[in-house]
């Protein structure tokens, strides 16, 4: 049940480092300031899957959206601190979010396929930059394979993406994100809208993907975290209260809150 960690985390440089990340709402206006995230610092080593868990409202979605600058889409939020991708701060003045998001991809809670064909969905990100049809073709095929969807759609790539089942659509979203060759993939509760069978397939995909990518998984399902992740980070009320190898955190939690959260028993 516990995921075996691949390469030992920490053996090579972390791909993503977060230092003192804080997100505050209402800092500029007269309304009350509220800290959604406070001073979170965390590393994400290569070839790993880190699960970010915590109760509702603890800020885990905001956290993960800060990693690819999607948090800027919500008005009224101020972000301080650093998020470094391979050493470069993504919030640097000279960096545009568009540049960042090709390297750090995201999959959302509900499957959000575009109303076009399966192929065009997967090719979406590629078409923005690449012109060469062969290149696009190859990348789409590869992405669909990596997402574990290729076998099911290879016979008819032109069918409407909306005709796929929920689980297939979500894997298509993963393929779509993978097609632009990111290094990091952020997944915000990707299976919460799926039935158990579809969930299992997405989890299997995630386990395969972590060999090549850095995955950050937000989940409220501790079981899922136990099944697929190498490391777990626990957030509560905007603060990072514990982080470590999955086995360690689940069997020997250091913080009281972690233990309560994992067992579900809040005394």
């Amino acid at each position: 049940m516990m995921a075996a960690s691949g390469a030992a985390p920490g053996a090579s440089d972390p791909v993503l480092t977060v230092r003192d990340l804080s997100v505050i709402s209402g800092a500029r206006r007269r309304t009350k300031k509220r800290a959604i995230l406070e001073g979170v610092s965390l590393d994400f080593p290569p070839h790993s899957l880190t699960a970010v868990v915590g109760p509702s409202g603890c800020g885990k979605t905001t956290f993960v959206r800060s990693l690819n600058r999607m948090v800027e889409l919500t008005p009224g939020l101020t972000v301080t601190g650093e998020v470094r991708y391979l050493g470069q701060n993504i919030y640097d003045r000279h960096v545009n979010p568009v540049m960042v998001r090709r390297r750090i991809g995201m999959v959302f809670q509900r499957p959000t396929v575009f109303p076009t064909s399966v192929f065009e969905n997967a090719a979406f990100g590629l078409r923005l930059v690449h012109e060469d049809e062969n290149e696009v073709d190859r990348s789409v095929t590869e992405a669909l394979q990596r997402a574990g969807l290729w076998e099911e759609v290879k016979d008819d790539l032109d069918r409407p993406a909306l005709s796929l089942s929920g689980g297939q659509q979500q894997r298509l979203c993963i393929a779509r994100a993978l097609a632009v060759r990111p290094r990091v993939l952020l997944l915000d509760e990707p299976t919460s809208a799926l039935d158990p069978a579809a969930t299992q397939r997405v989890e299997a995909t995630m386990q395969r993907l972590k060999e090549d990518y850095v995955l950050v998984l937000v989940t409220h399902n501790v079981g899922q975290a136990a099944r697929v992740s190498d490391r777990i980070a626990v957030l509560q009320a905007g603060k990072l209260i514990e982080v470590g190898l999955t086995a360690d955190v689940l069997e020997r939690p250091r913080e009281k809150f972690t233990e309560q959260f994992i067992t579900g028993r809040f005394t």
Partner: protein
Amino acid sequence: MDDALARSEAAGPEPLPPPSSPSSPPTVDVPRPRRSPGQWLQIFVPYIPSFVPLAIVAAIVVTLVLVTGLAPLNGLFTSKFAPTPSSGPASWGILVFVTGSFLTAVPALFFSMVIGLGIAIASVVYLPRIVTRFLDPCVDLLAGIPSVVYGIWAYLYVSTYFGSTLNPFLFRNLSWIPGVGGPAPPLSGLGLPISVFILTLMALPITTLLIRDALRTVPRDLWESGLALGATRWEVTRRVSIPYGRGGILSAAFLGFGRAFGETVAVAMVINVEASYPHNIFQGTGTVASLMFSILDSAYGNSQFLAALCYMGLALLAITLTVNVAGRYFISKLSATEIAGL
């Protein structure tokens, strides 16, 4: 009496009617409920007021058809419109005006769609909410101004600009385009260009509103997914929002066209109504609506003239009704919740 009772009780309860077949359930005869006249009334009365619009439209069609008498007029489908020719029989070619209607409505549709699309994108994608909450109603106000007011403003004021500046400019620089060369534009500034201008302004609030609504229906998730793939706002709009809202955009085109095609008074005031094909875009011509309006009193008593006008009316009605119904159909049909692949 007691004997009868005793005898019937002794015989047991009345036997059930035999079943019609071994497997079907026992049938019982229940008399069909009779609806009282009051109930029939209750069911049908609401239909009467609901179909008043139908009655009016039907009355319109019937009236027009009756006036034409379905008479086969001379030269009805030609382009020669001469009610009182110096020689020969009168010719009632309505094609001139149908062409005129298209000549004004199509460019107006084009301009109003392009501008409307731009405004809608600016409003939905780029401008902050506070600004659009103020600016959007301003565009909608454009629809509230009566046609005559547009007409008089254009006739007295805008036409001077067209006559002195814009038309000569077009004439001098673009005369290589067919239709722009030829006789010099009149100084009055009236004619096709200013008609197109007015119609664009009148169709603009419709197109802007509908495209804006279409773009706003895009779910937030979808929009963010596009951005998360490293696309710019423009790219997500172009590749996701517009395809998603293509139903609304199509209906904007249809309804905007219907508006431009059917506009009567403003066009009548600025188009320099003439019953002939223009030699170039600067001369006067007529649209169906504007001609029907401006010339009705001249047709008094002349049954052929009246019939011709009503034929034009039927054509106008057919086109506007089709376009309007089609436009509304697309709003519901193609809003891209195309579930399960169809």
